[in-house]
């Protein structure tokens, strides 16, 4: 515990919030609550980014993840009307299996880390995380992946639209539920 309290306060608080929210995401019965908790988690992670000298990424994280993707999730939830769904909880056996697996993973990775060496902090330039510098790197080194990601987006979009398209023959479920 002593070593824990030696950590700087911001880090401690932020980590605490993150982990708490993550736990609520996976255990909550109400899916909407899960979404909201995840958004909160994203906020705290963005704060971590700020701590780590990645300011641009923090904002982008908020905009893309919390702003767009989570909103998308909420939309779908609303669409499917899964408000207070009481989904059947899996058997206790599953819970135990899942806990063990996840715990094993945790164990193994930390053990792997213990085995390896410890990094020495090498500082970075102060303004590495600013848009200007990031943009420079993006447009020079990572140009091709950049373009490719554009293509990726296009294909995802097309795919999503195609998947969501209703067949002309089949009745829409909304009509069914209305009638």
């Amino acid at each position, binding site marked *: 515990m002593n070593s824990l309290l030696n*950590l*700087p306060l911001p880090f401690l608080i932020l*980590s605490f919030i*993150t982990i708490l929210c*993550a736990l609520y*995401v*996976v255990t909550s019965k109400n*899916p909407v609550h899960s979404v909201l908790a*995840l958004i909160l988690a994203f906020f705290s*992670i963005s704060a*971590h*980014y700020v*701590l*780590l*000298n*990645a300011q*641009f*990424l923090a904002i*982008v*994280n908020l905009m*893309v*993840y919390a702003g*767009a993707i989570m909103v*998308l*999730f909420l939309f779908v*939830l609303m669409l*499917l009307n*899964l408000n207070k769904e009481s*989904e059947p909880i899996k058997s206790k056996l*599953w*819970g135990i299996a*899942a806990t063990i697996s996840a*715990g094993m*993973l*945790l164990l193994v*990775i*930390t053990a792997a*880390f213990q085995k390896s060496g*410890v*990094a020495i*902090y*090498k500082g*970075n*330039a*102060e303004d590495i995380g600013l848009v200007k*510098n*990031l943009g420079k*790197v*993006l447009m020079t*080194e*990572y140009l091709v992946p950049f373009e490719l*990601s554009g293509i*990726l*987006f296009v294909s*995802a979009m097309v795919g*999503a639209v195609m*998947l*969501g398209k209703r067949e002309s023959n089949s009745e*829409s*479920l909304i009509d069914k539920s209305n009638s």
Partner: protein
Amino acid sequence: MQLLNIFNSLDISHYIYLSTVLFSIGMFGVLFRRNAIVLLMCIELMLNAVNLLMVAFSEYMGDAQANGQMFVFFIMVVAAAEAAVGLAIIVMVYRNTRKTDVSFLDSLKD
């Protein structure tokens, strides 16, 4: 802007632990939740844990070119695309089975 010498006492190991814990929580959620949408959300959580670790390493290794942060960029790209397509699929499945329970998607067996 760097915060006030915070890294004198903060080591990379703490970030590694944090990220690993988040990842494991996400993994637990993937195994435990039956709702497809919440499943996808847990995956997003795992991705974010990885992002955090990437940025932490980028900072601690003195990355002059911010390779870590660039990679996080692209991870976010992929995550977004994946979320979109995944949700579209879930909607389709819901249309056909009126449920979002993944345990009913077992017609792939022989």
